[in-house]
């Protein structure tokens, strides 16, 4: 018998894999609202929680009396999370949770609480390095030097010095963090948790609650956005379970919008002074940068120094990072941690250097691709992007356009891993030919169910309707958290392995019964074939497993070629900037993205489009605004924390870069990579339009006008 090895179908022979497959399992349920999220669980008797949070960035609770809240109509339980004397370290920290029959009554309960604070000194200005130094609120966050900086500067014929910045933004998950908890008896807990980590959170409830981890059922059929912020049970999740225990009722606790933005995660800021030089040929000879910013939570970190400069690795390079201790909510992983900031601080400076040297940035970036680890990817991707953007026709020297509304184009490039996480699946082939796959995974928007279904259906040569997919419960085989673009490989690998293992067993049964060689068998179009001759139907083959289903455990991650990692990606943006109002309008954006073997072309494109739109948000409108005097996050709501709407995104063009050798790389995740480049690409387009760099994102009208004013002065 020939050796059986796990592999994907030969390129061009797949019937579902890589095609545009809609979300058949859960799409209609999501669109019609029948899908239930943690925030929608309403089991009979559910109590609702509202939270008292601290309005000060730094304070001590000098008085707290919750007794009046207990007297309020409808209030069933009041739980103090931080009592008198507790120090509050950032605005929004939780103080009291009130559970009531109705959310309105829980709010009545909050109003009845008597609380007073001793307000303490705070520092929240993430950009103000000098004040932070005076307050001893800076911490070294890493430094690294390679080569000879002085020599690199001497080799340079053009040197550019610039300042660039990326403020803190939040995750803004539309479903806030939270849970619905219900006890059975004294020690059995069911949690509907809004989580990216179905298989990994039970212990975080069990520990503080003093029950066995095996008694905690975590359920998450649907999650309303995570973006890296929902990996934990969190103190509010545990509080929800405690309130449920205390009241003997199911309890739902979701953060309110403002609290969600203040304490449930954000993306660290970074502001950089950069010196970068190139020689007469346009080759980068030196990079020297120091950046500072905050990751909040008084942690004293900022964006990792390791991403400076981003992607390019010049022979002489110095980088330093300084973390600011800020009384602001702590960061959490935000889609492609560190990379969007690194890109926005690097590809802007490189574009300005190119401008100073009188070189078109496309030419400049191409000249320096040997300083990257993926020149063979970036080169063709730049060419494709340039064609789709019509770069040659549209590019002009910075600021060369006429009239008050100026157009410009810019580019950036990025990289990401996207390797598979560890995961297992249980796959059953029922005697009637139907197939079931169960994994303790989750769908953060990836289309996890559809991806699992595609791989299983492809493997057995059956339609998607023959496959049932179960995810969203920790009673299924463990699957890794959905972060870092690890899910698609994480689920595709184990399902393919389990599927092929089951199919081989069935092939052996078919071979014995029909007297054909097992090695010659192929499953396709609901039939089993031997040398292009039909042997039997899939149903007949499946029936050979006997009265009980055939069960296989599929494992991952493995180094067997089904999955791999490390993609590139290039983006170009075109904008129109009104120099009188400062408004930047998106005209067009092009993304060229490699991603190995594509599982679902439709959802893959959706990931890229979504990332581009998220990138437009942090490039043009989105930022956390802190009031330095009060220490408050003053735009912690959806009205003032601006996100683009359907008419604000311009034309979006997505090109999946897939030369023949991409398919053989296997499956690679792509949630993060396309969200990295927009900041630099859009900022570069604005700089090309204006002939002036608007140094700090997002490029609001005020910042654009300030930059224009500064250039005139």
């Amino acid at each position: 018998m020939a050796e059986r090895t796990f592999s994907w179908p030969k390129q061009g022979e797949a019937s579902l894999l890589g095609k545009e497959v809609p979300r058949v399992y859960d799409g209609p349920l999501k669109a019609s609202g029948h899908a239930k999220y943690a925030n929608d669980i309403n089991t009979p008797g559910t109590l609702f929680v509202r939270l008292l949070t601290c309005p000060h960035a730094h304070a001590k609770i000098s008085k707290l009396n919750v007794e009046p809240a207990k007297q309020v109509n409808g209030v069933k339980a009041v739980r103090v999370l931080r009592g008198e004397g507790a120090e509050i370290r950032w605005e929004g920290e939780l103080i009291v949770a009130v559970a009531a029959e109705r959310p309105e009554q829980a709010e009545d309960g909050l109003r009845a609480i008597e609380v007073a604070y001793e307000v303490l000194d705070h520092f929240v200005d993430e950009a103000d390095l000098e004040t932070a130094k005076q307050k001893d609120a800076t911490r070294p966050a890493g430094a690294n030097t390679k080569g000879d900086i002085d020599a690199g500067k001497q080799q340079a014929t053009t040197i550019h010095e610039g300042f660039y910045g990326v403020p803190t933004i939040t995750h803004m998950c539309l479903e806030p963090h939270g849970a619905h908890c219900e006890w059975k008896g004294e020690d059995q807990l069911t949690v509907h948790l809004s989580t990216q980590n179905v298989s990994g959170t039970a212990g975080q409830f069990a520990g503080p609650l003093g029950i066995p981890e095996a008694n905690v059922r975590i359920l998450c059929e649907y999650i309303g956005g995570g973006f890296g912020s929902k990996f934990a049970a969190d103190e509010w999740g545990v509080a929800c379970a405690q309130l449920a225990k205390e009241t003997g009722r199911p309890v739902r606790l979701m953060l309110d919008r403002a609290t969600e933005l203040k304490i449930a995660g954000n993306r660290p800021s970074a502001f950089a002074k950069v010196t970068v030089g190139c020689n007469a040929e346009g080759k980068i000879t030196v990079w020297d940068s120091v950046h500072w910013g905050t990751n909040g939570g008084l942690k004293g970190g900022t964006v990792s120094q390791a991403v400076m400069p981003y992607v390019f690795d010049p022979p002489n390079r110095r980088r330093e990072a300084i973390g600011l201790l800020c009384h602001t909510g702590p960061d959490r992983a935000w889609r492609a941690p560190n990379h969007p900031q690194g890109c926005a601080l690097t590809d802007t400076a490189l574009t300005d250097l190119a401008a100073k040297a009188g070189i078109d940035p496309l030419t400049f970036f191409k000249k320096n691709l040997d300083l990257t680890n993926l020149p063979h990817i970036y080169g063709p991707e730049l060419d494709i992007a340039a064609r789709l953007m019509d770069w040659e026709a549209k590019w002009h020297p910075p600021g060369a356009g006429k009239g008050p509304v100026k157009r410009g184009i810019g580019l950036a490039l990025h990289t990401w891993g996207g390797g598979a996480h560890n995961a297992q699946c249980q796959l059953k082939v029922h005697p009637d030919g139907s197939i079931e796959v169960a994994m303790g995974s989750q769908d953060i928007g990836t289309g996890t169910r559809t991806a699992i279904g595609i791989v299983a259906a492809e493997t057995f040569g059956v339609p998607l309707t023959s496959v049932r997919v179960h995810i969203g419960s920790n009673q299924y085989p463990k699957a890794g958290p959905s972060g870092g673009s690890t899910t698609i490989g994480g689920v595709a690998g184990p399902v393919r392995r389990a599927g092929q293992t089951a199919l081989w067993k069935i092939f052996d049964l078919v071979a014995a019964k029909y007297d054909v060689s097992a090695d010659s068998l192929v499953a396709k179009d609901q039939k089993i074939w031997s040398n292009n001759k039909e042997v039997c139907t899939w149903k007949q083959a499946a029936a050979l497993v006997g009265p009980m289903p055939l069960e296989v455990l599929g494992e991952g991650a493995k180094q067997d070629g089904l999955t791999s990692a490390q993609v590139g990606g290039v983006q170009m943006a075109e904008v129109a900037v009104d120099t009188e109002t400062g408004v930047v309008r998106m005209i067009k954006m092009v993304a060229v993205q490699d991603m190995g073997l594509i599982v679902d072309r439709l959802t893959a494109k959706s990931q890229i489009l979504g990332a581009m739109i998220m990138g437009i948000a942090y490039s043009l409108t989105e930022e956390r605004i802190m009031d330095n005097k009060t220490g408050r996050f003053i735009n912690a709501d959806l009205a003032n924390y601006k996100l683009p709407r359907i008419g604000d995104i311009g034309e979006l063009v997505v090109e999946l870069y897939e030369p023949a050798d991409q398919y053989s790389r296997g499956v690679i995740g792509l949630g993060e990579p396309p969200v990295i480049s927009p900041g630099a690409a859009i900022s570069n387009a604005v700089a090309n339009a204006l002939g002036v760099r608007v140094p700090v994102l997002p490029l609001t009208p005020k910042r654009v006008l300030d930059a224009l004013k500064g250039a005139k002065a």
Partner: protein
Amino acid sequence: MDRDRPPTRSGPGFNRRDFLKGSGAAVTATALATAAHEEQAAAQEAARKLVPAAPQKVTLNVNGKDVTITVEPRVTLMNALRDDLNLTACKDVCDRTVCGACTVLLDGKPVYACARLAIECQGMKIQTTESLLQDGKADPVIEAFVKHDGMQCGFCTPGFAMAVRGFCTQHPGATLDDCRKGLGGNICRCGTYDGVLKAAYEVAQAAKKGG
């Protein structure tokens, strides 16, 4: 804050002295206070004493059926649908008429359910997104959203689908540009606008052909 009087603070933003003075003096300043002005503390003391009006029977016509619930007059249509009727396609996201996740049709017109009181919607026809997929029968809007992948996490999607349903009924034959302008009332964080736009355009064009 009283809009007819200048704010009781000097310069742009609160100054540190007032801020500290206020928070020290107002012993009972509630957590909702911004900076514990005495004025604000008094207002909040008054708010604390407010007693909500008693619950009463409210009859709503939802998805073609009359249902009677007992709720306080202050309960929003959104909360009544979600908490009393378990119709959770109506999503609670911004709670202040910004994002459109709670969009329902009220007498055929898309509205934010968080901006209406349940009690004021009596006698009106309320349609929630659940009605677009009933008994296995899908409205063309649902089919178009699935076909064009107008969703990722799916949390904004029912509100968006309802906005599209209302818009396309009112504007059969709408162009892409019409759709861009007419659907500006909904926010998506995952960035599904491209699929939503294609879905809306397809439904609007089909509505035109359908007469």
